């Protein structure tokens, strides 16, 4: 292995570690160093920062990390991404996207932490995500999915009251004649696999890390 690639590997590992150690400043300074050393910016994200986020995601599933850790790790990742973004090839990054997703909290509900975590993990996994925010009417999900050419719609709901409205997204997709064009994934504290099946969603994910696996699987089989 050449010196160059050993150095590159070392930097990528350090980038990942800065995220795992929740160190925003270090992630940013290492990203600057990566640029100076000529490490490919896109690689620095996908094989460095995002890898760190993946490790955090795995730890979250195992009960090592919890929600506050995830949010701060994400801050470190994005601090690095912001440094690297001006340096990478937009076209290449578009081509390398794992897919495009539209995500939001369903109308009637404003709890958005879970949705934010799913978005973070999907972005770390290479998805281009369009965040519709919270209290999102069903039509907006459909319009955004059509406009962005989304592969997947992710709908979140924390409270029982808002659950039935999720089904309206699926009806609206059918009305627009694009149900087959996009996968629908649902999640949130009150949602269950049985509910997902009942409303005709394609999948249910019980947390942000599971959402990544599920999204990948859904698109592979699409």
């Amino acid at each position: 292995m050449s010196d160059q690639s050993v150095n590159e590997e070392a930097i990528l590992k350090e980038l990942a570690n800065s995220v795992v150690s929740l160190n925003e400043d270090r992630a940013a300074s290492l990203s600057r160093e990566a640029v100076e050393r000529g490490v490919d910016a896109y690689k620095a994200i996908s094989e460095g920062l995002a890898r760190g986020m993946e490790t955090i995601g795995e730890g979250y599933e195992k009960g090592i990390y919890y929600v506050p850790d995830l949010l701060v790790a994400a801050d470190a990742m994005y601090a690095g991404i912001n440094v690297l973004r001006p340096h990478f090839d937009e076209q290449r990054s578009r081509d390398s996207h794992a897919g495009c997703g539209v995500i939001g909290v369903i109308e009637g509900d404003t709890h958005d932490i879970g949705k934010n975590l799913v978005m973070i993990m999907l972005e770390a996994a290479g998805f281009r995500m369009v965040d519709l925010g919270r209290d999102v009417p069903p039509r907006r999900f459909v319009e955004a999915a059509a406009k962005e050419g989304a592969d997947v719609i992710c709908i979140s709901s924390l409270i029982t009251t808002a659950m039935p409205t999720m089904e309206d997204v699926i009806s609206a997709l059918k009305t627009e004649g694009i149900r087959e064009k996009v996968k629908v994934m649902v999640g949130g504290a009150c949602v269950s696999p049985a509910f997902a099946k009942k409303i005709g969603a394609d999948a249910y994910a019980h947390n942000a890390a599971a959402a990544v696996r599920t999204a990948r699987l859904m698109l592979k089989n699409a």
Partner: protein
Amino acid sequence: MEDKARLLDTLSGRQKGLLPVVCPGGMMSAVCREVGLKNSDAWPDGHIKPDVMAQVALEIMEATGFENLGVPFCVTVEAEALGAKVDLGDATVEPQIAGYLMNSQRSLPRLDINHIERNGRVPVVLDAISYLKQRHPGVPVIGNLTGPMSLAASLMDPNLLFRYMVKDKPFVRELIACCSETIAAFGEAQAKAGADVVSIGDPTASGEILGPELFEEFELDSLRTVVRRIRRQNAMTIVHICGNVESILRLLPSTEANAFSFDAKTAVRTVREQVGNWVLMGNVSTYLLAWGSASAIANNARRVINEGIDIVSPACGLATGTAAANMRALTDAVRKVRSATEGS
């Protein structure tokens, strides 16, 4: 047996198997569309006038068959008392906090804690409790508090608050201390006004959100402090936490609450294994209550009873569209089990 004795004997641990069925109020309010629309002109008076609040509590009990009176019907009273703006809603929409009071560490609220009974709708709740206690001595009156973590997350966007839990722990400790002082004072006042039981609902403190370390660091002592202060005023306590609580189960008994109420996400058996004899409450699916059949609800009730629940109640906050008939299906099913086992 009178409803009050049934619940209090269960909560005190004096007797097992009495199977009261209740819906505490607060975050678990049973104000459903029918009760709300019965007097739609009465909203939002039901949140701001003590006599109307009391009347609504009575109507709920009548319509649903739950064996308690519970006030208030929202989780906004404490935040409002600290200065947050609240949208009181209407006959079918619960009060909501309208905007976060705090957007950085620099804006810790100042509150006249010594006169909590004067702030916002606190006097309304206290007067309603007194009214209900006097007029209906055989029925348990449950007052409700928003837990410290949930109150903090009503004052400051949890997207910020959770980050501060990692990056500025002294600030979060101060904020939680302010919240638990507010809650403790309100809880004491509720007990003094006549509440037999005070239920503390803290969904934001869920095990799946915080995990055991952060729960122990920020929440546990506060909950215990609030519980102790209420107990000193001779009322009993319930702690309710939603979501998957497995990661914090071993910590919860040290809150010293009389009972622990939990969500359908964690099985009664799982909780029982970790907490032993502690009085357990819950955990009938709110999804079933909203959209299930009467028989599915009855089956669910029987199942949680078989699994060892001591007090039957909804798993979490009810959907506003939940029909009174469905709540009745639950309460009737529990009473049926009771008469089968005790012949009463």
